């Protein structure tokens, strides 16, 4: 189905947000996926730089600043499109949230906290990492923390690589394996945040 401009009827491109013919901002379409809003094909393997460039180019036409003196309806549409574009960039640029979004699209909520998942190996890894961070913080060892950060960064790269394989074909045929990888990535992400806070705490103390 081809979308057409609500004002002049001309055919709309992807995303169907601005009419190339009459320049009208279109009513917001809440039904579009984050990929569709960004005008990109739905894949996990995504070049973040391309995504960024694409979203910013779209923001140039749709941001509320472009409609500072326009009618209330146009201002509202622009706010809605621009908000959704920011959401698309925030979620799709992040390997964890991107994977979670794709799995949710096929009805799998791998990070749902209400679902108890027994994963003894991950639990063990978590405890080991946390103990090491606590020891480094107690010893005020900034260079040790930096080394730990690099180690965690390498682990993140490994998990993302695994996800790339699992989500290479959509919908994902091994959702349990993808879910486990997702939970591991979520833990590593949180750990990086904790390392940040510990470092900041030491530097500002």
């Amino acid at each position: 189905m081809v979308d057409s401009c609500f004002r002049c009827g001309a055919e709309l491109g992807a995303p169907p947000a601005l009419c190339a013919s009459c320049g009208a901002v279109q009513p917001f379409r809440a039904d579009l996926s984050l990929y569709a809003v960004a005008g990109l094909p739905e894949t996990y393997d995504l070049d973040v730089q391309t995504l960024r460039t694409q979203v910013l180019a779209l923001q140039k036409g749709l941001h509320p600043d472009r409609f500072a003196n326009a009618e209330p309806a146009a201002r509202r549409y622009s706010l809605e499109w621009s908000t959704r574009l920011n959401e698309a960039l925030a979620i799709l640029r992040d390997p964890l949230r991107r994977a979670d979004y794709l799995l949710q699209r096929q009805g799998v909520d791998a990070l749902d906290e209400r679902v108890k998942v027994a994963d003894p190996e991950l639990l063990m890894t978590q405890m080991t990492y946390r103990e090491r961070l606590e020891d480094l913080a107690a010893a005020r060892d900034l260079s040790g923390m930096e080394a730990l950060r690099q180690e965690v960064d390498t682990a993140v790269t490994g998990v993302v690589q695994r996800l790339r394989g699992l989500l290479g074909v959509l919908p994902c045929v091994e959702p349990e394996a993808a879910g486990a990888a997702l939970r591991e990535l979520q833990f590593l992400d949180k750990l990086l945040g904790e390392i940040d806070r510990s470092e900041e705490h030491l530097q500002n103390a």
Partner: protein
Amino acid sequence: MALMQIAEPGTAADPHRRRLAIGIDLGTTHSLVASVLSAVPTVMRDHDGNYLLPSVVRYLGGGGIHVGYPAVAAAGQDPHNTIASVKRLMGRGHGDVQTLAGHLPYDLVPGEGMVRLRTVAGEKSPVEVSAEILRVLKERAVETLGGEPEGAVITVPAYFDEAQRQATKDAARLAGLNVLRLLAEPTAAAVAYGLDKGSEGIFAIYDLGGGTFDISILRLQAGVFEVLATAGDSALGGDDMDHALAEWLMREEGGDASDPLWRRQVLQQARTAKEALSAVDETMIALTPFGRAAREIKLSRAQLESLIQPVIQRSLPACRRALRDAGLKLTDIDGVVLVGGATRVPAVRAMVEAFFQQRPLTDIDPDQVVVLGAAIQADALVGNQREDLLLMDVLPLSLGLETMGGLVEKIIPRNTPIPVARAQEFTTFKDGQTAMSIHVVQGERDLVQDCRSLARFSLRGIPPMVAGAARIRVTFQVDADGLLAVRAEETSTGVRSEVVVKPSYGLNDEEIARMLQDSFTHGAEDVVRRRLSEAKVEGERVHEALRTALAADADLLDPAEREVLDKAGTALINALSGDDAGVITAAAEAVETAAEPLVQRRMDSALRRAITGRSIDDLGD
């Protein structure tokens, strides 16, 4: 035929006339106004040639008001009625400013909501005081430009929270300004630098003004200014250096520290000495304590630097935090821009250079760089510039909700690009529960008591159901100005009640609660109110179109037609002052009907102008 069809969308009645737009830097110690004149962003001066307007307002008995230098001159004799640094009080409650109270000689009125000052002209809110400053800047612009500006961009510290932004916007409205955008000061500075140099890369903007400190990390690429992170301290600035020096002077000199006149004198001398020491190594401070002999004190730059070092150091944690939030290392920074008069202090420049490991950029006057950027952005927003320039800002402070035990649940984290929306679902926890209390806060701390309370309201009129069955969806929408709207909606029964709350210190909690309660119990009234506001917008648009059309082409009408149209116009103005949507809409329609001959003739004459000079063949189809 509608009046609005006279001009094509986006084109002015006269395409050659530039639309007037101004940028305003509403600063703690000074304010400025600028505009793009003949493609050059220019700071406007007063009759004496000054471009800085001291942000000082003096209320006189009998309704008189002095703003700027005359007010500064009187500050020593009339401290209670002379308000300086009012920006520090914007959007602040009485409790917030207790820590500042020792520094400020004003008579603060205790009470709920935004703090108020007792003056000879009555109680004044910081919004009203700021509006007086904005009025003077607007007058200066009108005189310089030869007409009313269509819109203004007003800069705020990036670290300003929701209440402070809202207060700034309220002040502008009070001064009769149409605010196109509130722009973060560091972003404005980047615009001024970016356009001048056409540079691309990642920049740190270190902005130490009179009363606020901001550090922002921006990426400039392909016409998009993207704020990556911002951090700062809304209670740190050059004033703190003055106060540090003044405290030292008072300890050295004695005198009555609670005497506002004495404090004012010492503070002024401290500021003068600090400024002098940016250029020279040593200066003399002259003090005349009441009832004692005048004294001169020698102060060296080294002494000053040791006194202000603790103040300057307070800016470093924010610099580290901003870098971390942006996910960057020091070596990723391509340039450092200095903004704000306080960055003239050599010790500040030295510390910035040491921290960022590079010499900061200082080509543009640090006092003017923000207002110049604001003027450029204002010019772009009213449609004068064809350049593809876009500013993407971030939310300066996290937004959250109070949960059990006085804890904060963050809904939108700081440094999220705006506009942004997030929804959160809530449910009832008791059978038959018909109300729910929601408390919106802003800040980074885990406890509600350490964050700024933005709005506290109850949702009432929830249909009674078993516990956990109701679905209350609360949506937070932050617009491009960083202003928040909260929308609450009960979805499980298909009962759609929603309301938009603009939390601000202008509204107290009761008013907000009442607004929400009203929306749930009086949904129909809301529809009426919305219809009224839509009718008013439309009516004002028709009136404006009529005024423009008559100004340009009144001669196309004969006297009888003119009389009918004038009558319809007057009826519309009267209707607009009332609050009946039906009357306003009818009056607007009457104007459109009466204006039909004029519209038709304007179209014909425009068409004639357009086809003049074209051959008959061109008109064949």
